């Protein structure tokens, strides 16, 4: 188990390193002078003085290897460089924004799990009308891109019914009620798509587990139906759901960028979108690396959970 765990953590670190390397190389893979590229707006050639200054700032005049090594060293010290726009340290901007994005992600995935797993289990166990209705609903939910869902939510709940605010953010220590009211719509919009995915996976996985011999054994023992489902079916069925869930978190993280924009939620997407437009490369790199690391971390946790739930993985 320990060896497996160490190896698994090693894989995550290696992947994080490869991601960082690719992001570093991306700037240099584009033909032409990176500084000219970042400074050019439209067809106007950038000011040579500004180009020289940017060379200086990004260390573009040094050798590629030199730049790469200092990039890695600074990364290990948690230094993601400064914004090209206002010279503000990227890491500080992220430290301010990340908790808000995390809150949205956690609320969304919790909601998705709470919706998807019970619904998927019920659909698989009882089949019939509930299964059909839930499956058709799922197909529709999966066809609605997250930003469309968010926009339609605003149109329906804020614009037409006037039940909820259309977006915005209030810190939790200033007004907790308003904070969670503002969280509700974006979190639900993020959750539904993931809930649909979880529903499908849980349903398929539970159906598969229900047909296994050990379920028949449990029933042959006279174990109660509720216990057969919770102890025998779900314990086995949820293991594969976990892994796939980890992979789908990528879609959720990307969807968060869109949803934060739709609902004016001041998380990571605000500086990210601003930086993409301004070609503020250090800021974009900082945020992409943060979110990718978050994704790797989530998958690491999922795999560890997997091993906790399935003794066969622990042994091998």
């Amino acid at each position, binding site marked *: 188990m320990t060896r497996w765990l160490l190896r698994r953590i090693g894989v995550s670190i290696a992947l994080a390193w490869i991601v960082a390397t690719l992001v570093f190389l991306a700037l240099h893979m584009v033909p032409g002078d990176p500084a000219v590229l970042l400074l050019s707006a439209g067809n106007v050639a950038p000011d040579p003085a500004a180009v020289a200054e940017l060379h200086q700032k990004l260390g573009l005049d040094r050798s590629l290897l030199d730049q790469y090594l200092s990039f890695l060293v600074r990364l290990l010290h948690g230094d993601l460089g400064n914004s090209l726009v206002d010279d503000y340290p990227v890491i500080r901007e992220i430290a301010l924004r990340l908790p808000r994005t995390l809150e949205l992600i956690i609320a969304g995935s919790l909601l998705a799990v709470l919706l998807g797993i019970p619904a998927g289990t019920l659909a698989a166990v009882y*089949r*019939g009308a509930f299964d059909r209705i839930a499956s058709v609903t799922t197909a529709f939910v999966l066809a609605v891109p997250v930003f469309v869902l968010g926009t339609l939510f605003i149109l329906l709940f804020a614009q037409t019914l006037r039940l909820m605010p259309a977006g915005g953010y209030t810190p939790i220590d200033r007004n907790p009620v308003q904070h969670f009211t503002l969280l509700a719509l974006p979190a639900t919009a993020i959750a539904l798509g993931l809930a649909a995915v979880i529903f499908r996976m849980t349903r398929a996985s539970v159906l598969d587990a229900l047909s296994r011999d050990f379920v028949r*054994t449990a029933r042959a023992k*006279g174990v*109660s139906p509720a216990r057969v489902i919770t102890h025998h079916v779900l314990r086995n069925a949820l293991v594969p759901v976990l892994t796939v869930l980890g992979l789908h978190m990528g879609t959720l993280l990307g*969807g968060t960028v869109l949803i934060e924009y739709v609902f004016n939620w001041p998380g990571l997407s605000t500086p990210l979108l601003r930086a993409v437009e301004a070609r503020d490369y250090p800021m*974009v790199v900082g945020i992409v690396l943060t979110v990718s690391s978050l994704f790797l971390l989530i998958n690491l946790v999922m795999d560890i959970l997997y091993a906790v739930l399935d003794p066969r993985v622990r042994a091998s």
Partner: protein
Amino acid sequence: MKRLWPPAAFVAVIILIALAAPLLHLADPTRQDVAHRLSGADGGAWLGRDEFGRDVLSRLIWGARTSLAVAFASALIAGAIGTALGLIGGWFRGLGELLALRSADIILCFPPILLALLVVTLLGPGANTLILVLSILYAPGFARVAYAETLTARNHDYVEAVRALGAPTGRILLRTLLPNIAGPVLVQLSLAVASAVVVESGLSFLGLGVVPPSPSWGLMIRGARATMEQAPLLLLWPCAALVVTILAMNLLCDALRDALDPRSAVAQPMLRLVDRLVPGLVPPPGNAASLFEIRNLTLSVDGASGRVHPVEDVSLSLSAGETLAIVGESGSGKSLTALSAMGLLPSAVHPTAGSIWLGGDDLLRFDEPALRQLRGEKLAMIFQDPMSSLNPVHRAGDQVAEAIRAHRKLSQGDARKEALALFRRVGIADPEQRLAAYPHEMSGGMKQRVMIAMAIANRPALLIADEPTTALDVTVQAQILDLLLALKRDTGMAMIFITHSLSVVAEIADRVTVMYAGQVVEEGVVADVFREPLHPYTRALLAASPEGDDPLVGIPGVVPQPNAFPVGCRFAARCVFAAPACTAAPVPLTQARPGRRTRCIRWTELPVTSEVAA
């Protein structure tokens, strides 16, 4: 294929409309008419005009063109690169293999939108940037699919054959392998197109995808958000277009996958136990000595080709402490008969006639809670394969304790103590350690001992053992049989022992019921049946089992499938004694001698056993 064409037609219509955009005499989608901004459905614009006075219908259709062009271009580029990489990786292995497999792992580390934003920062927004990003995103998926399929295909006989003919590698890859992996690649392609439409619209919505004034659904939603209050319809049209397109594509993906994957065939309808039987219609067994009795049981399955009866008119009975063996080849209906007694039939199989009596109760009329009270207490069952019958994620001791606690109010600790005693009773070495072991840490024989411990935990009156030794090594088989015999002797429980081996029957059973193709064909006391079989099938089984010095004689042919049961004697096709009369009409089960029944119209004419063997 029935489910494939509606979504395919749907997608085809959407693509056709997009392709036909220049022929439809639409207004120029980029021409502004600020005087008529946000006007309703008049003045030639059927769906009204947007915030710049542009024709919404025209923008929707031209927007479909943009979305689909980006989606198909990127999916095709990704498909070509990825499939080539996967083919080469799967064929030559080596570096290509590494690339095909690992590139997917690495690309997966980037949430798609973020990777896209990174590239947009470097290259600026626009359709070409989108196509580049989406190709990078989807190529690894194709590589992985093509790689896996190539690995499987390269070992197939037809590929080996082409290789042996000395065909050049390129030709093998393109002409032989590619067509054979086309199915999964096609599914991947449809997934990529659907997913690309979503990412493209999302980025355009952020203002970082398609560049205005080009029409795009994402851009239209972005624009309509600002005027949501005055003109909510402007928002709904592009949303609807996007959702309908993605829905159609998703349905097509699902249908394609189903069509190419034979495993996900038709869903079985949900069938329930018959409670149609009127209570009291069938009297309980007159013979008070019989503990358990199955009377005229027929099981049915509603299949694609009509209703079939894998078990038909089966009757058997046994008294307390007795052991009855049910013998027959695979497909004779032995296991289904036993499962129906437990109420554990697969959901597609349901009893349509007969009764199953335990004491004075008809189990077929019991509902699930009542059956559950019986299962594991009065009635217990051991299954054929101990590997799959134990739950892999729970400790062996806990699974036995669960059987105890399902029927008796015991503390966790007391139940564990009892499980330990049971482990000792069934002869598990190191019982204390084994309580905490997981199934995968045990041998097959030991797992079957755990199953037996579980079954006898509540001292059942009847134990059903469904081929309990078939999946085990020969040496272990004898040990398990000895254990079952000892347990039976000590507890006095009755046992139904299902097997296909007559040598096991001789060792363990008092009486034997021989089943063939869903029917009982012969029954009687074991010694009598062995000495003088009254059905040719029993004779054939005896001749086919390694007993005594007689040479082994196999039975030619196979058991017919339930949908192909003949009208007359079901064994006639394989029977050396068959006469024309045998196939003319159904053969009844007749009382041949006291305690002996046979389903053969010629039993009186059969030669005695020694003559057959000669």
